[in-house]
């Protein structure tokens, strides 16, 4: 049953990405372009997404287990570290260059054309080569 429910979650996520405009790279780059024609849409999307999720975390805290059993994710790791900072910086550079992050890259693959396919293929390649690079980056407080 888990794959059926994860399909529903993925489908809702994809629908939200399309409706919000986050599968359009011009809106994402517009948000990052503070010296150009700045587009604040992404802030509304983030705000809208954080609200139900903040409530969900409170519900989860009051429950013993998720509906399908198993356990809830552990509390967030308090330490920051080099990997978080270096990785997020590299990710941000790619996000600014193309206007795509992993969710929208997958959601838009059926209509994104050659550019969308090239982005997804190289992103998958990057994910594949990442583990040894991550291992070389000593996890010390940043």
């Amino acid at each position, binding site marked *: 049953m888990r794959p059926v429910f994860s399909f529903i979650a993925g489908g809702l996520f994809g629908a939200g990405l399309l409706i919000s405009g986050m599968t359009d790279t011009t809106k994402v780059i517009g948000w990052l372009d503070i010296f150009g024609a700045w587009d604040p849409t992404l802030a509304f999307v983030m705000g*809208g997404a954080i609200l139900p999720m903040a409530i969900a975390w409170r519900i989860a805290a009051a429950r013993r287990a998720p509906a399908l059993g198993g356990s809830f994710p552990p509390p967030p790791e308090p330490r920051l570290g080099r990997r978080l900072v270096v990785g997020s910086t590299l*990710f941000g550079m790619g996000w600014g260059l193309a206007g795509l*992050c*992993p969710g929208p890259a997958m959601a838009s693959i059926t209509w994104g054309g050659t550019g969308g396919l090239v982005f997804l293929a190289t992103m998958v390649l990057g994910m594949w080569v990442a583990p040894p690079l991550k291992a070389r980056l000593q996890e010390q407080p940043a």
Partner: protein
Amino acid sequence: MPTEWIMGFAGGIIIGLAAAFYLLVNGRIMGASGILGGVVDGSARDTLRERIGFIAGLVIVPGALAIAMGGADTHVNNNLIVVAAAGLLVGIGTRIANGCTSGHGVCGISRFSLRGIVATIFYIGAGGLTVVLFRHILGVV
């Protein structure tokens, strides 16, 4: 208030409901890079079917919705070298940082995770500087 902001907020609520559903039903954090990355690097064999289900929904549902809406456009940069470099950076960066906009951004910030907040500051900062450099100085995006 422009329609795009209202659509952004409405779509954002749906994204948040998806993340809430995935947490409360499946017991998982809805992070796009982690769900895909675990499939790509083979680190998540025992949860493979659950991840494939999520990715299938993420591709099929907006694909069908786009057809119903009369089409959608992503406006990907025509310079495929820039797009390929961006894809590599996003793939490597999100795996090193253990999360992207959905995991660190939506799921992390909503539980007041310091890591999620710091990651978001760094990827938005790096993204902003990249747009300044490549759009206003070099003129390639």
